[in-house]
């Protein structure tokens, strides 16, 4: 026990921490901590360890000029979708730069899939983009069928198309709600969930689960339609347009909503293509690219539909695009029900699938865009390589391009209009 000189001033604990840190740094042979206000002062502000910037982009984002500050939006934030983290550089209320930081929800699904048999891969991909579970299963199912060389029966294809369109409707419906929620409108999201709940009940009556459906199989689907599914489908079909319209009435012509989304986050078609943005976000910028039309898979070449596009490319156009696609999907569902053939729903495949060595690529149109799977087989029971392209990951690239010069409030509104799902982004 050292004796304390009563004359000594009792040191401030914060100062003690600083001294201790300097001592430890000296002992470890590190450079002394940089004083705040230095070249990379931004690191300090968002909790990044003090180190030289790794890339030019990092240097650009994390060095601050006079009057700028960095704000962490997420990973814990009331409005970021899931665990997205945006490091926003602001000057007052004006956004100067945005740096999305990803990886908080990374579960290594691709690696998990490489260690799973082809049949069980379809269960692992479910929680990826958790709002479009059916689509998550669709692309690997197609890819594995190509690898193994098996054709699903016609009825299975029709049931697949039916469930993915149902999934698309609730996913787009939720986007309407989340977009409004990120602007402070609390009701549309709950109306959207009414519609979602009906569809989820519907899908659970055919697949047995409410969220991670695990419905697709290599060479078919798990179950045929049943009476409960069909009767629920009829009820839902009667309500859906009314539900969507009820929600639309809250938002579409709302003066505040229009003022906040029109001319906001405008992405031109050329930029959207350059950034790799696909799906409704691309079509909202006026580029008529829809995988269902451009590279027809499943039974989409037997159905009648047009590629819907919007002109403006702003947040409002992206919102309108979603609504138009909901109505298009309902139209598609009507056609699918009319044309659905009888027959088996599962082709003959062995319990453990061992495709010949080769590679297969399958792309589908998920609610967020082009979702594709690239899989390599080495002849074993599990994929040698399994890689997924998730559209929301690509869409996020557009946000740093669109935000500079806008206000903090718009960050959330524009991000919500791209409808990213972090489960898909981080995989």
């Amino acid at each position, binding site marked *: 026990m050292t004796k304390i000189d009563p004359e000594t001033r009792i040191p401030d604990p914060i100062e003690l921490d600083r001294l201790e840190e300097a001592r430890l740094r000296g002992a470890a042979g590190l450079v002394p901590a940089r004083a705040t206000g230095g070249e990379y002062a931004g690191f300090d502000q968002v909790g990044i360890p003090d180190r030289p910037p790794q890339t030019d982009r990092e240097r650009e984002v994390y060095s601050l000029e006079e009057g700028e500050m960095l704000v962490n939006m997420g990973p814990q*934030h*009331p409005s970021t979708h899931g665990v997205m983290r945006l490091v926003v550089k*602001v000057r007052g209320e004006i956004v100067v730069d945005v740096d999305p930081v990803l990886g908080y929800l990374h579960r290594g699904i691709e690696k998990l899939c490489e260690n799973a048999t082809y049949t069980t891969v379809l269960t692992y991909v479910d929680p990826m983009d958790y709002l479009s579970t059916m689509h998550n299963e669709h692309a690997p199912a197609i890819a594995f069928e190509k690898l193994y060389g098996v054709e699903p029966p016609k009825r299975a294809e029709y049931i697949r198309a039916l469930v993915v369109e149902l999934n698309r409707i609730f996913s787009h419906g939720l986007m309407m709600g989340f977009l409004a929620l990120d602007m*402070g409108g609390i*009701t549309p999201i709950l109306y959207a969930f009414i519609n979602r709940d009906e569809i989820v009940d519907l899908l659970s009556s055919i697949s047995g689960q409410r969220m991670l459906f695990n419905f697709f199989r290599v060479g078919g689907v798990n179950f045929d339609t049943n009476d409960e599914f069909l009767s629920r489908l009829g009820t839902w079909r009667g309500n859906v347009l009314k539900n969507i319209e009820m929600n639309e009435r809250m938002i579409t012509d709302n003066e505040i909503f229009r003022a*906040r989304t029109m001319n906001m986050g405008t992405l031109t078609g050329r930029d959207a293509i350059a950034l790799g943005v696909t799906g409704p976000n691309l079509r909202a910028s006026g580029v008529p690219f829809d995988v269902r039309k451009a590279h027809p898979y499943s039974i989409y070449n037997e159905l009648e539909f047009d590629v819907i596009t919007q002109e403006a490319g702003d947040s409002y156009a992206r919102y309108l695009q979603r609504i138009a696609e909901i109505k298009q999907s309902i139209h598609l569902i009507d056609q699918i029900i009319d044309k659905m053939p009888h027959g088996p729903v599962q082709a003959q495949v062995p319990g453990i699938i061992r495709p010949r060595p080769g590679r297969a690529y399958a792309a589908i149109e998920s609610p967020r865009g082009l979702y594709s799977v690239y899989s390599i087989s080495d002849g074993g029971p599990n994929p040698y390589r399994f890689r997924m392209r998730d559209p929301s990951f690509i869409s996020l690239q557009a946000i740093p391009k669109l935000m500079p010069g806008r206000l*903090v409030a718009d960050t959330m509104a524009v991000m919500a209009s791209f409808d990213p799902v972090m489960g898909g982004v981080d995989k």
Partner: protein
Amino acid sequence: MDWELLLGIGRFLLATTLLLVLTIPTAFIIIQMELKVIASMNLRLGPNRVGPGGMFQSTIHGFKVLAKEDTIPDQADPPTFTLAPWMVYMAAAMSMLVIPFAPGAIAADFNIGVVYFFAVLGLSVVGLLVAGWASYNKYSLLGGLRSAAQMVSYEIPLTLSIVGAVVLAGTLSFSEIIEWQRQHGWLLIWQPIGLGIFYISSLAEVNRTPFDMVEADSELVAGPFTEYSGMRFGFFFFAEYVALFIMSGILVSLFFGGWLAPWPFPAQLGGFAGTLYGIFWFFLKTYIFVFIAVWLRATLPRVRVDQLMGMAWKVLLPLALVNLFVTAIAVVVFEL
């Protein structure tokens, strides 16, 4: 000994105590309304476990915040941090002094009640700014600065919008304005534009949707309140709802006849019965406007901060000035 003075002081103390106590059930009732009304508008059930139909949910919330741990962030500034909720709450509670509940039921019937009201209610912005600064949090700081910008800007159209009413009534005392309305009809008929400007500005002044830029939960987490917990947060929360009640009450007093019934006030009702009658009408009308504010919250998204300021300076302020100008000319020309 001046008994008059002592009596006055005693009456004032009683009234202020009563008003302070009144803030508690007021906040509870409005919070409960917000829980249940928004729930039914969202097609939800809302809270339904505490008490019959969940009617004590907000009371339980109140006790919950009392029991919560009260934290102060390491780098916050304790004196200002602890003072800020008090400042906001007192601004709301003090402005209750001049609210005319019924004939005779008004804590302090100043002859400059209107001026006092806007002066005191405006103080709450200081509390919010202090809270935002003292928390040592970027969201809080942004929220605090927003509150300063927003509330100071909206105070101008808010105050100007009632000058027309004041010019017509020829008085700054709330009870005399109501008396004028008894004789000439509600100011709603005389000052429709003033009413519109007042209503919009008052929503902005008490930070209600669609103008809740200060809290803006989807952008700023909870604005200046982010770092607050326990009863300090509770005070902010209370102040917000009390301010909503007060603003609705003032709106009713200025434009909807205050304690007056929609039909002529029965002259034979005097004394205590008359007071009760007045209180009934005052609370009924006030809660109608509180309900409308809750309704708006369930319906509208939030405007953006630049749109908000643009509306105050480019639309409401010129409109309020024109309204005042026209009213003043009319008063002079028609000798109202």
